[in-house]
C-alpha cells in the first residue's frame, strides 16, 4: 500500500503520520504541497500543524496549494483520504467535507488526551474497532469547534456520518467531555461516499505504549485492511 503524506509549509505532524503509516506496513512518501500528481498512491493523508500560520482561516490558504487539485480529484475517484487536525480543516475548506472548524469555545488552545467513542465501525478507517469502543487519543488545537448549518448537521446525524464523538470516561456524550464546543461533540466525520475522513484528534500520536496510548493504531490498521481487501 502506497501512501502519500502531503506536507504544507507549517505542517508539523507529517513525520508522525509517516511513521504511523509505516508502522502498519505502508510504503509512505512525503509529497510537498507544490508537487503535482498522485497517480500510483492508494491513500492520501493530510497532517496536522499550522499550515500558513493559520492565516485568514485555518486551512484556507493550504487549500489553494497546487497539490490540493490532485487531492480533490483523488477523493472524487473514491480513493481514501484522511485529514487529521489541520488536515481536517483543510478538507473542510476544500469542500471535501461539509462544515467548518472555528475557534474553540474556551478561546484556548487545547492540548490533552480526550476520550472518543467510535460511532461507526464499518468504515474504511474504523473497521478494526468495535462500535461504541472508547479510545484515548490526544487533541492539540485552537480551532476544532465543528460547526455547520442545521440541514448539514441533521444530514450528518441522520446518515450516520459522525465517526468519532468526544465522550467522558463512561462513554457518555457530555458538555464537560467536549473540549472545543463542537456541535453534538463531533470529533470526526466521513463524507457521503465514505472515502474521506476528517478528525481533530491525533490517532498518529497514539501508536505506542511509550506515548501513553495505542488506541490510534486502529485507524491505520483499518485503512491498511481496507486497501488490501481492494487489492486482493
Amino acid at each position, binding site marked *: 500500500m502506497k501512501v502519500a503524506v502531503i506536507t504544507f509549509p507549517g505542517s508539523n505532524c507529517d513525520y508522525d503520520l509517516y511513521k504511523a503509516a509505516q508502522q502498519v506496513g505502508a510504503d509512505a512518501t512525503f509529497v510537498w504541497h507544490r508537487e503535482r500528481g498522485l497517480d500510483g498512491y492508494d491513500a492520501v493523508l493530510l497532517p496536522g500543524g499550522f499550515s500558513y500560520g493559520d492565516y*485568514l482561516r485555518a486551512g*484556507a490558504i493550504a487549500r489553494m496549494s497546487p497539490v490540493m487539485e490532485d487531492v480533490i480529484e483523488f477523493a472524487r475517484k473514491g480513493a481514501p483520504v484522511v485529514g487529521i487536525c489541520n488536515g481536517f480543516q483543510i478538507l473542510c*475548506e476544500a469542500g471535501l467535507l461539509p462544515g467548518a472548524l472555528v475557534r474553540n469555545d474556551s*478561546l484556548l488552545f487545547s492540548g490533552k488526551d480526550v476520550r472518543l467513542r467510535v460511532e461507526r465501525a464499518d468504515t474504511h478507517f474504523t473497521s478494526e474497532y468495535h462500535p461504541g469502543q472508547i479510545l484515548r487519543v490526544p487533541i492539540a488545537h485552537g480551532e476544532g469547534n465543528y460547526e455547520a448549518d442545521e440541514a448539514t448537521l441533521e444530514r450528518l446525524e441522520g446518515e450516520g456520518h459522525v465517526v468519532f464523538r468526544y465522550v467522558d470516561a463512561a462513554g457518555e456524550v457530555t458538555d464537560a467531555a467536549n473540549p472545543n464546543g463542537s456541535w453534538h461533540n463531533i470529533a470526526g466525520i466521513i463524507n457521503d461516499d465514505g472515502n474521506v475522513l476528517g478528525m481533530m484528534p491525533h490517532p498518529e500520536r497514539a501508536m505506542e505504549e511509550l506515548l501513553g496510548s495505542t488506541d490510534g493504531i486502529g485507524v491505520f490498521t483499518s485503512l491498511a485492511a481496507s486497501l488490501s481487501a481492494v487489492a486482493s
Partner: protein
Amino acid sequence: MSRFRLEVRVKPRPGILDPQGKAIHHALNSLGWDGVDDVRVGKAMYLDLVADDSGSAVEAAEAMCRKLLANPVTETFEVSLVEELRAASGADA
C-alpha cells in the same frame, strides 16, 4: 483602468458561536459598560486593485470573498468602495 481601494468586512454568521465576541462582551461588562448587549468579532481587509470602474472592482472583490476571503459556512461578507486611488502606472506621475 483605475485603481480602487476596497474594504472587505467578514463577519461571523448569525447563530454561529463567536467565543471571541463573547469574551470581549464580558470584558466590557466587567469594565462597567453594562449596556453592551452583544459583541461579534469579524475582520476587515483592505484591497487596492485595478479595474475598469468601481462596479467591476467591487464585483471582483465579491468573487474573491466567495473563493477565499470568507468561508460561507461560518461567515458573511460585505464589500464597499473606500476611494478611487491615483493611477498606479507612472503615466500621469
